[in-house]
C-alpha cells in the first residue's frame, strides 16, 4: 500500500508538470491525452497479477524484439532514422518499449536458480539479452536509445558481475574519448605506468599478469584506433562530441543546442524568472525545448532552486527504487527493480547532464517530463510493473 502510495504521488507530480509554452497549445493538449492514457495503463498494470510478468517475460521480450525488427520495414522515417510506427496522428516508438521488455527478460533469466554470474556462459548470455536490442536499435540509427540499454550492465554487476570488469569497460570507454583529443604516445606511456602500478598492487599471480597484459594491449589498441574510428562516426555525432570536448566552438550549428541550453539555465539565476517567463525557451532559442531539453525550462523558470529540486526528486526516486529492490524476496523482482533504477539513472544522468554541458548531446528524454507519448507510457509501464511486483512481495514465497 505504501509502495502504491508513493508511486502514485510521484506519478502525479511528474505527469502534471509539463513544458508550458504558450504557442505550444497543440502539444500541450496532446500531452494531456498521453498522460490520461498513462494513468489508465498504470491502473491496468496494477490490476494485473504480479505473476503475469515473470511468466510472460520471454514472450514480451520476443514481441519487443520482433517489433524492433519490424519497424525497420514498416516504420515511418523521421529525421534519418526509421524508428516510429505511425497510427494516424500518433507515433509509437518500439525502442522505448524495449526498455522494460529487456528488464523483464533479464530478470527472468537471471532469477533462474541454476544461473550464476560467475559462470562465463551466463555472463555472455546475459550480455546477449542486452546486446540484441541494442544492436537492433543501433541499426535504426538511434544511437542514443541504443546506448541506454547498455546501462543494464549495472544490473549484471549487482548480480555478481565482477566489479573490475565494469570498471574496465568504463575505463575503455573513457579512454576512447580521451584518445580522440590527446596524442597517442603520451597515453600509451600513461597506461603502461598504470598497468605496472596495478601489477604491483595486485596478487602476483600469472593469471593477473596475463590479464593486465591483455588489458594493456586492448588499451593500446583503443588509443591508436580511437582517432581513425572517430572519423568514421556520423557527422553530427562527431560534431557533438567535438563541441563537448571543447575542440570546436560552433556557435551556430550543432552547438546551438548546448550553448542555448546552458544560457537558458544559467539565466535562471537563483530562483528563476518565474512561471511562463522563460525567455530563452519561450522564444525558441533552445531547440527541442519540450523534448530533450525540457530541463532548460525548469532551469530558466525555476532557477537554481527548481533545478536542484528536480535533481533531488529523481535522486530520491532512484534510491527509493534501489532500496525497495533490495527488500524483494524474489530475485526476479529484485533484478527487475535494479533494471528500472538503472534505466532511470541513465536517462536523468544524460539528459540533465547534456543541458548543463557535463555530457555531450545525446538525444534521450527526461522521464515523465519530456513531451512524447511513447516515452511516457514506456516509463509508466516500466515503473508500475515494479510497483506491482513490490506490492506483492509479501505474497511471494519463493
Amino acid at each position, binding site marked *: 500500500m505504501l509502495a502504491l502510495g508513493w508511486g502514485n504521488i510521484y506519478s502525479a507530480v511528474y505527469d502534471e508538470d509539463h513544458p508550458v509554452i504558450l504557442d505550444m497549445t497543440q502539444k500541450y493538449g496532446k500531452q494531456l491525452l498521453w498522460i490520461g492514457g498513462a494513468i489508465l495503463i498504470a491502473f491496468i498494470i496494477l490490476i494485473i497479477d504480479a505473476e503475469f510478468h515473470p511468466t510472460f517475460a520471454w514472450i514480451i521480450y520476443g514481441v519487443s524484439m520482433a517489433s524492433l525488427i519490424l519497424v525497420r520495414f514498416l516504420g515511418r522515417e523521421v529525421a534519418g532514422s526509421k524508428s516510429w510506427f505511425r497510427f494516424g496522428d500518433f507515433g509509437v516508438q518500439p525502442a522505448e518499449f524495449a526498455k522494460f521488455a529487456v528488464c523483464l527478460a533479464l530478470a527472468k533469466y537471471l532469477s533462474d536458480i541454476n544461473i550464476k554470474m560467475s559462470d562465463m556462459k551466463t555472463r555472455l548470455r546475459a550480455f546477449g539479452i542486452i546486446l540484441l536490442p541494442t544492436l537492433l536499435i543501433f541499426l535504426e540509427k538511434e544511437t542514443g536509445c541504443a546506448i541506454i540499454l547498455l546501462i543494464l550492465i549495472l544490473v549484471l554487476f*549487482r548480480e*555478481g558481475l565482477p566489479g573490475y570488469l565494469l570498471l574496465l569497460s568504463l575505463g575503455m570507454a573513457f579512454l576512447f574519448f580521451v584518445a580522440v583529443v590527446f596524442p597517442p604516445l603520451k597515453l600509451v606511456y600513461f597506461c603502461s605506468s598504470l598497468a605496472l602500478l596495478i601489477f604491483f598492487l595486485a596478487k602476483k599471480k600469472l593469471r593477473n599478469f596475463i590479464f593486465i597484459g591483455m588489458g594493456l594491449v586492448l588499451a593500446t589498441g583503443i588509443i591508436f584506433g580511437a582517432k581513425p574510428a572517430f572519423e568514421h562516426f556520423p557527422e553530427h555525432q562527431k560534431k557533438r562530441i567535438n563541441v563537448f570536448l571543447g575542440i570546436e566552438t560552433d556557435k551556430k550549428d550543432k552547438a546551438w543546442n548546448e550553448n542555448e541550453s546552458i544560457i537558458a*539555465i544559467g*539565466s535562471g539565476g537563483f530562483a528563476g524568472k518565474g512561471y511562463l517567463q522563460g525567455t530563452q525557451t519561450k522564444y525558441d*532559442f533552445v531547440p527541442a525545448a519540450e523534448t530533450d531539453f525540457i530541463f532548460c525550462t525548469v532551469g530558466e523558470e525555476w532557477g*537554481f532552486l527548481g533545478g536542484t529540486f528536480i535533481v533531488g526528486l529523481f*535522486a530520491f526516486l*532512484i534510491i527509493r527504487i534501489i532500496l525497495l529492490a533490495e527488500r524483494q524476496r524474489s530475485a526476479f523482482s529484485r533484478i527487475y527493480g535494479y533494471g528500472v533504477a538503472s534505466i532511470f539513472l541513465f536517462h536523468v544522468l544524460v539528459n540533465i547532464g547534456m543541458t548543463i554541458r*557535463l555530457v555531450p548531446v545525446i538525444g534521450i528524454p527526461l522521464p515523465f517530463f519530456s513531451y512524447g507519448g511513447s516515452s511516457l507510457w514506456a516509463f509508466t509501464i516500466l515503473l508500475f510493473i515494479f510497483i506491482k511486483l513490490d506490492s506483492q512481495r509479501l505474497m511471494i514465497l519463493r
Partner: protein
Amino acid sequence: MNPFNERKYIFIGLVLLIALTYTVRLFYVQVIDDRYKLDARNQAFRYVTDYPPRGFVYDRNGKLLVFNQIAYDLMVTPKQAKNIDTALFCKLLGITKDSYIRKMQIAKSFPNSPIKASIFEKQMTAETYAALQEKIYKFKGFFVQTRTIRKYPDRIGAHLLGYIGEVDKDITEKNPYYHDGDYIGVNGIEKTYEEYLRGKKGTRIVMVDVHNATKGSFQNGKYDTASVPGQYLTTGLDEEIQAMGEELMINKRGGIVAIDPTTGEIICAISSPTYDPNLLVGRERSHNYGLLFSDTVGVPLYNRALMGYYPPGSTFKLINGLIGQQEHVLFPETRYPCARGYPVMGGKPGCHPHASPLDLQQAVTQSCNSYFCFTFRSIIDQKKFSTTEEGYKVWRNYVLSFGIGRKINSDLPHELKGMVPTPEYYDKYFGHGQWKSSTIVSLSIGQGELLITPLQMANIMCIMANRGYYYVPHILRSVGEKKQIVHDWSEKNFTLIEKKYFDIMVDGMEQVVQAGTGRIAKYDDTTHICGKTGTAQNPHGENHSVFVAFAPKDHPKIAIAVVVENAGYGAEVAAPIASLLIEKYLTKKISRPALKQKMLEKDIIHGAYKIRKERRD
C-alpha cells in the same frame, strides 16, 4: 538473501554522487557565473548604445559653423515582434504594409538577425516620433534609439565642413569601433577630425520584461560604460569672409582660398557652385546627394578650392622671375623687348600693348608675356646645363619647392597635387631629346601643361608674403575647451629662392594694384595690396579670371587666390572679388557697395551659355 547485496551501497553512492555533482554544477552555472545572464542573446536585457553628441565646429571668432539636432531611429528585434497590429503601426509610421513586410525581412536577414536589434526606420521626423512613442508599448520588439545629426546655422562652408554618413562594410571591417548603422565623417573637416568630433560610444544595459517594456537599468548601471561627448573644434576660418565669398561667387564657377600667411591658417575656402550643407543631412540625404551628383554642368559636389585644376596663367610669372634671379640670369635691371608678342618665336605668345622694353619690376606690373619667355629661356638654356633636360630638371625643382606639382599636406582631405610635367612627360610626348626651351615656352607664362589648384595659388601668395617660406595650410586651430593644439604647424617650409630676391617681385606686385593691371583692387590709399592678375587660357571657352594677392605689403595678414571660370581677364571679376574680401577681412567693412553689388549680379554661368551660343551663330 543475495550474496552481493552490499553492492547496493555502491549504487546508492553512485546516485548520490551524480546528484551532488549536478547540484554543484547548477549552482555554479546559475548562481555564481554571471556569464550566461549577460549573454547578448539573453532577451531579458537590451543593449542600448549611447551615442554621444558630436563636437561642434567654430570659426576663429567663436561663431558656430556646425551643431547638432536630434534624430530618432526606430529599432526592432524581429524575434520579439509578435502580434503586431500592423495596420495601426503602419498608419502611425506612415508606411505601407508592403513596406513593413520588406523592412521586417531586411531586419531578419544577414547581416542583421532575428534575435538582434537593427534599424527599422531611420531618422523619423519629430512628429512621427511623438505619435509613435505614445503607443510604442503596443508593439513588442520595437524601441527608439536617439541619434544626433548635423545642422548648419549659416548654410555655408559645405565643402569645407564636409558631411557625415553611415559607415559601410569597408570601414566596419577595418575599424571595430564602428558598427553597422554608425555615422562617420565622409568629407572635409568632419572626416579629418572624425576622432575628436565623434567622442566615444557608451553602452547601457537595460532590463526589459517579456512585453519589451523597459524596467530599469541592470544592477544600477554597474556594467554600463559611459559615453564621452565629442570635442568641439575651433578653426582658423572666418565665417564672415566665407559667407561673403560664397555670396559673391553665386552664378559663377570657380574657387577662392584665403590663408593667413603668418600661421598658415585657412581663412576661407570656397568652391562654387556650392550647396546648402543642410541638404546632406538626415532622411533626405541620399535623395539630395543624388540630385547634386547628377548636376553635371555645375558639378556642385566637386571641391574646386582643393581639386580644381587651372593653369596658373600670368601669376606664374612671379615664380619664373624668382627662379631667374636665383640662377643669376635675371636682374632687376634686365630688359627685354616685346613686340606685342615674343619676338623670338614670331610673336607667339602674344602680349597686350605696353611700353617696351621693360625691366623686371615693370614686366611684373604690366604682366608682359615676352619678358618672361626670355626669362624662361635664359634659365633653361644656361651653358652650365649640357642638355635641355638637365636645365629643365633644375627649373622644375625650384617650382616644386613652391608647393605645386605635389601635395602640400594640408589637413583637408582630397587635396590634389597639380601638374608640373616631368622631363619624362615631355620625352613621351615629343621624343627624348626632341624638345627645347622654346618648345615648352608656354610654361613661362603659366600656360601649357601646368595645372594648379586655388589652394596652391593661395599658398604661393603666402610664400610671397613671407618673402620665401610658407606654413602648411590648415583649417584647424585647436581642439576642445582646453584649446588643445594637436598638430604642430609651425614649421617653416622654405623655397629654394633666397629672401633677397623677393623684394623686387613684391614691389612689382604692389605696382600692379597701384597702377597696373590690378588697379581695380585698390580700395584705399593707405593699404598696400600686392597682387597679380592672371588670365588663364581655356581652350574650351572663355578664359578664366585669376587674381592672387596678399595684404598689407608689410606685415601681411591675408593671402588670397581667386579663380572665376570663364570670366575673362583677371581684372574683370577675380580682382574685384579678392579686393572686397581683403577689405572686409582687414577693415571689417565694405566701402564700395556698388562694386559689391556689381559682383553679386555678375552671372557667368548663364552668361557663358550666351557667349557660346553667340559664337556658334
